[in-house]
């Protein structure tokens, strides 16, 4: 069984030979901070220039030899750039949406000011006046086409295409988190119109990419965070009424054009939204944030395991950064039989690996995944 078959089998809720392993195929959240990646390479006695795959997350493209070493079954087809080209500035603009990002001391970035954030009560006129990016300014289909074709030839891994983050995340980038939340009640017209505009742009952008990818993609994945640590960011009712219908259009558009599975990355406690995720056509749920409320393996598998394949679950808050290698092995050993029962599970850390995770712990996670992942 090759890697792609292993992944597809798991996604179709059948038990493969072992639990498939992901590392870096979704640069938004299953990858590794570039500085941490450089530390890993040094630890392994390797020297090379890292490539940046996701500027906002400052995550690396994980190279094929590293994926081989850790028995990884997935690979991203998102275009990347050399680190020297980005150079990790203290601040930068996410040009297409005019959002300012600042660097933290650990070389992660956070959005600090969006174009609608300083406006007290933005109007539909403000939305109209904004110079929205075109789909090809957001993604270059030719670069994607070339990379997807090349990687399909180079490896037998399942190919993952990371699409633009979704409508809630972008609305928060552009309006600030608090502005976004307040608008849901106090400026509903603008809130709905912003979500609708973002959904429309997202669909157009994905539509320009899908023909370029053709058969060279197995999973279409995008992130849209709906969870805080202890509950969803908005009420399940409001999600159902105002966000889910737009997402259904977004996902329906993909499904009409490709056989690829659709995976949603959404952090935090999203247990209460799972019925809607299933209803709008999501196939795979990531990252099963281990320390978030109601996201433990037993609970999630029972609630979502039949309809959704699950992806992630290995704790990056406590176990990976602070635990011993033995703790990491125990974490993997405990979760695999629960999440992996009957297939339907891809193992990965529950977020990007940052500089505080010792390389030994990361390696222990991959070794344990192979050891305990056999069906």
């Amino acid at each position, binding site marked *: 069984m090759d890697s792609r078959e292993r992944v597809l089998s798991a996604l179709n809720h059948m038990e493969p030979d072992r639990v498939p392993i992901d590392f870096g195929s979704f640069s938004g959240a299953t990858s590794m901070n570039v500085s941490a990646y450089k530390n890993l390479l040094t630890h392994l006695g390797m020297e090379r220039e890292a490539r940046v795959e996701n500027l906002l997350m400052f995550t690396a493209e994980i190279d094929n030899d590293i994926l081989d070493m850790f028995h990884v079954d997935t690979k991203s087809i998102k275009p990347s750039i050399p680190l020297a080209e980005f150079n990790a500035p203290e601040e930068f603009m996410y040009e297409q949406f005019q959002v300012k990002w600042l660097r*933290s*001391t*650990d070389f992660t970035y956070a959005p600090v000011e969006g174009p609608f954030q300083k406006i007290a009560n933005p109007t539909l006129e403000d939305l109209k006046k904004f110079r929205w990016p075109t789909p090809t300014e957001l993604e270059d289909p030719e670069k994607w086409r070339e990379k997807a074709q090349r990687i399909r030839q180079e490896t037998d891994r399942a190919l993952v295409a990371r699409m633009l983050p979704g409508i809630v995340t972008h609305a928060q980038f552009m309006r600030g988190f608090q502005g976004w*939340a*307040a608008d849901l009640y106090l400026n509903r017209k603008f809130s709905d119109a912003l979500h609708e505009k973002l959904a429309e742009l997202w669909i157009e952008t994905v539509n320009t990419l899908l023909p370029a990818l053709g058969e060279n993609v197995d999973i279409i994945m995008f992130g849209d965070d709906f969870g805080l*640590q202890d*509950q969803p960011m*908005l009420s399940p009712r409001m999600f159902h009424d105002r966000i889910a219908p737009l997402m259904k259009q977004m996902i329906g558009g993909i499904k009409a054009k490709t056989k690829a599975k659709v995976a949603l990355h959404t952090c935090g406690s999203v247990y209460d939204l799972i019925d809607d995720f299933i209803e709008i056509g999501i196939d795979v749920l990531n990252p099963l944030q281990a320390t978030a409320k109601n996201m433990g393996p037993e609970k999630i598998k029972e609630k979502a395991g039949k309809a959704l394949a699950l992806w992630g679950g290995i704790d990056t*808050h406590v176990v990976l*950064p602070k635990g011993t290698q033995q703790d990491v092995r125990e974490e993997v050993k405990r979760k695999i039989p629960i999440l992996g029962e009957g297939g339907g599970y891809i193992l990965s850390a529950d977020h990007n690996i940052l500089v505080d995770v010792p390389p030994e712990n990361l390696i222990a996670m991959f070794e344990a995944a192979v050891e305990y992942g056999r069906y």
Partner: protein
Amino acid sequence: MVNLSEIKEAITQGKPDDAKDLTQRALRGGREADQVLNEALIPVMNEVGEKFGRNEIFFPEMLVAAMAMKDALAVLKPILVSKGIKGTGKAVLGTVQGDLHDIGKNLVGMLFEGAGLEVIDLGIDTPKEEFVKVIRENGPQLLGLSALLTTTMPRMREVISALEQEGLREQVKVIIGGAPVTQEYADEIGADGYAPDAPSAAKKARDLLGVG
């Protein structure tokens, strides 16, 4: 006369304009500012926080309630100040150096204000020297530190050490929070309290200041 329950209702419903308007009318009708604060604003924000803790309401509902409370409070403030009525106490808040996340901290700030505290919010990416300086100058009873990243959490310990070195540790209670933070970590670094979410932070603050 405006019934205090109407003000509470406007806040619960997240209607800033109504909350402000009703508060103004209550004062015009002869209500005392400290009565509106103590019998409407503080208890209703306490209820809102508890509902959030029980997942009966979510972030947006709590935010708009806090915004409504803030607008009502702004009407009361000049009167409270002119009458020399002191609040529950003073709190300094900030996200530690190197960390740019502030959603949780901002919410804690609003609920602290809803609990009657005066809040000095130092924002994100705050160096320990800044905490020391502001605490020395303002003499708050409470310091709230926030970190979202596992990699910036250790800065919390450094702030506490800096306060010890400067002889300021005894005069201020320190509470910490943020997704990766635990009670165990709070104990380890010698913080006075830990709160897993914003409403518990407000409750913890009241407990620590003995204003239950």
